[in-house]
């Protein structure tokens, strides 16, 4: 594996770990997802409920 690919994969792995970190923390906290963590999750969903979510140019098909 060339170094650039290795670094990119490492970046992806770190990104995935960042997504998983709150869930891993919940496990170590006794497996219970706190009120604050639940609110944070709901806020993330609500932020996606507007019409802006798919309005960016990256969502336009390109050929």
């Amino acid at each position, binding site marked *: 594996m060339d170094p650039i690919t290795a670094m990119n994969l490492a970046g992806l792995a770190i990104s995935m770990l960042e*997504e998983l970190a709150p869930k891993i923390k919940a496990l170590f906290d006794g497996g219970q997802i706190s009120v604050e963590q639940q609110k944070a999750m709901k806020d993330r969903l609500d932020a996606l409920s507007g019409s802006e979510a*798919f309005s960016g140019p990256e969502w336009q098909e390109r050929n």
Partner: protein
Amino acid sequence: MRKLTSSLLLACALGAGLFTAGCKTATLDPAGVYQGDYLLYQADNVITTSYATVHAFVTWEWKNHDMVKAKMPEAMDAANYLRRNYPLWHQSAIDARAVYQDTKSSASKDALTIALNVLKNAIDSANSWMAKGSGIANPSPSMQ
């Protein structure tokens, strides 16, 4: 570098394993907004995670379009496929979530589960293409 990458991927796999385990064993504080309904929490987790992942992929393809088109046109096709379909899947899952939240019926639970599985497949697809494409253009985590 190879050792570092292997360690990070191993850590990631471990994290994924813990997450899987968490799906089976984690509980919700009943005072929270989900009132103890783990499926609702899981639905929001899948919906938001799939959006972040698919958005990262289509943004990566958009920023590197000419290079992707020249070197990996299949990734461009995959990005366009997700651009066409993911918004519909996303809305379907949100709609199914709303019906389940209102009715808590078995049928609505099944419909939500199916909608979430579609989003999980989208996550797998986007992750797979970003991993394949990492050799030709950097999929920066900051794009998410």
